[in-house]
């Protein structure tokens, strides 16, 4: 493939060599009106690694994930205190444009949600809104190849994205997120609505993508976290049903020798 794509790659390398930590939260609290959903989270996310967020239902995993690209603000009554730093810059500073944040930090949702447009248009949408001037056909192919979907859809690019199977739809959504060339991809239980085979496809893809992207994944499935992630953060709820960070370590360490009794109970299936 030609120079447009090469340029994209070199740009990414230039950015990524500078810093080891892409994202960092400092005393992050997230509220919905008066309810505090997330309490005092301090964590650093390492570049080009997969970081998994696990924990029982309702502990605020998704809420935390959505705070990394300011998707939380779409919910009325939500607000935060503390800081979320992206390359050292506070994403919640008054002069930061959430649209730009979401350009750099993409998102894949729990339920595949392709646009009711053709496969091609699904990929091209994000590129168009960001004023992509390069060769669109190339970008579409590149993104679909990265998402391991190209071979399956190359002859049906004009078909509706909704005509694909659930697993293919989710890979289309990943390709769509990749097409705007983010640095970070947030994944909110990306495989929970899929069958086991499609789930494996997605997990392979996540491993593959971590060579080029920083990935944060929320998952209910502990085996999945163990399989795909380099680091794992375990969250639990305190007495006020507010989520807090219990333990954060590299995945191997956390699953084999958890330091906290709660983590041990959770990963061995004693609660949650």
């Amino acid at each position, binding site marked *: 493939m030609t120079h447009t794509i090469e340029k994209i790659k070199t740009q990414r390398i230039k950015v990524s060599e500078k810093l080891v930590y892409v994202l960092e939260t400092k005393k992050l609290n997230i509220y919905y009106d008066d309810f505090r959903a997330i309490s005092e989270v301090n964590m650093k996310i390492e570049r080009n690694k997969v970081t998994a967020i696990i924990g029982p239902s309702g502990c605020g995993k998704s809420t935390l994930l959505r705070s990394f690209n300011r998707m939380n603000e779409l919910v009325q009554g939500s607000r935060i205190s503390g800081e979320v730093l992206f390359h050292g810059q506070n994403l919640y500073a008054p002069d930061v444009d959430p649209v730009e944040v979401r350009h750099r930090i993409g998102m894949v949702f729990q*339920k595949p*949600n392709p646009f*009711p447009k053709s496969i091609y248009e699904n990929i091209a949408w*994000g590129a168009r*809104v960001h004023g992509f001037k390069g060769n669109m056909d190339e970008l579409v192919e590149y993104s679909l190849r990265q998402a391991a979907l190209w071979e399956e859809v190359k002859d049906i690019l004009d078909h509706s994205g909704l005509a694909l199977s659930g697993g293919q739809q989710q890979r289309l959504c990943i390709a769509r*997120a990749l097409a705007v060339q983010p640095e970070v991809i947030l994944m909110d239980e990306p495989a929970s609505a899929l069958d086991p085979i499609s789930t494996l496809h997605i997990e392979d893809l996540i491993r593959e993508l971590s060579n080029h992207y920083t990935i944060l994944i929320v998952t209910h499935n502990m085996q999945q976290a163990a399989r795909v992630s380099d680091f794992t953060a375990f969250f639990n709820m305190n007495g006020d049903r507010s989520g807090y960070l219990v333990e954060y370590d590299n995945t191997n360490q956390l699953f084999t020798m958890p330091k906290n009794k709660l983590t041990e109970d959770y990963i061995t299936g004693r609660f949650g």
Partner: protein
Amino acid sequence: MEQIALGYPKSRNGLKRRFRVGENAILALLFISGVFSIFTTIGIVYELGKEALLFFRTPNVDLWSFLSGTQWQPHIDKFGILPLFTSTLITSLFAMLIAAPLGMGAAIYLSEYASEKVRGFLKPILEILAGIPTIVYGYFALTFMTPLLRTIFGRDVVEIYNTASAGLVMGILILPMIASMAEDALSAVPNALREAAYGLGGTKLEVALKVVVPAAISGIAAAFIVGISRAIGETMIVAVAAGAGPNFTFNPFKGAETMTGHIVRISGGDLSYDSIDYNSIFAIGLMLFFVTLTLNLISQQVVRRFREVYE
């Protein structure tokens, strides 16, 4: 183990189908309501057709001169529908010129931009606007819109009765209906699509115009069609403000009677039931019926072509 009585009626033996009076009664009632509306429609078409047929059977009338004639002068046996038809077209065009963009704008604002509080305040007001009797709108056209047009464009340009004034006010009348229906269509678009678009870095406007509106296009088209049909069928405003005389003109500042306006004026007078004048209004009615029917068929095709199925 011994069965514990929990207050259920004693279980019957076997799995035989039971006759349920309530179920069947409701089923019959629902069926009758459905059939009722079908028969009403058939009855209307029959009555229209029967009287219109009498009209077309009269010696001095034929279908071609009815469709292409530019004079509607019953007293000299001229029954050309074009003067009535064009003024209907002009008033409806003016109405849609107002109602389509403003209705769409209001719908997008209400569905995508307004906070819960603002929406809760604005939507009822919009619906009150839809509840004002059309005769009031008619006099609003005559006593407000016409003087306004005359001040802007000059008293010698704009006649007291004119189609532009009636059309513009008609636009205000159908605006809330289009806004409300289009808003329903936009609100029905799943939030997952909006999230996907925001997640890719779309701005509010891009999300609204490039994802939500296309996904809701079939509902929006339906809203427009209902609006146009309403404009074509609207009677009181044009009867009051558009003028009372068939006048073949494309000048919106001149008075010209629409199809509905003519029907209401003729049927309001003392006509005998077997006169050709009386029969002629059924021919006009049939024409109205065909116009709205055609619009509906066209819109169905358009919607099928551009629809984005999102589930």
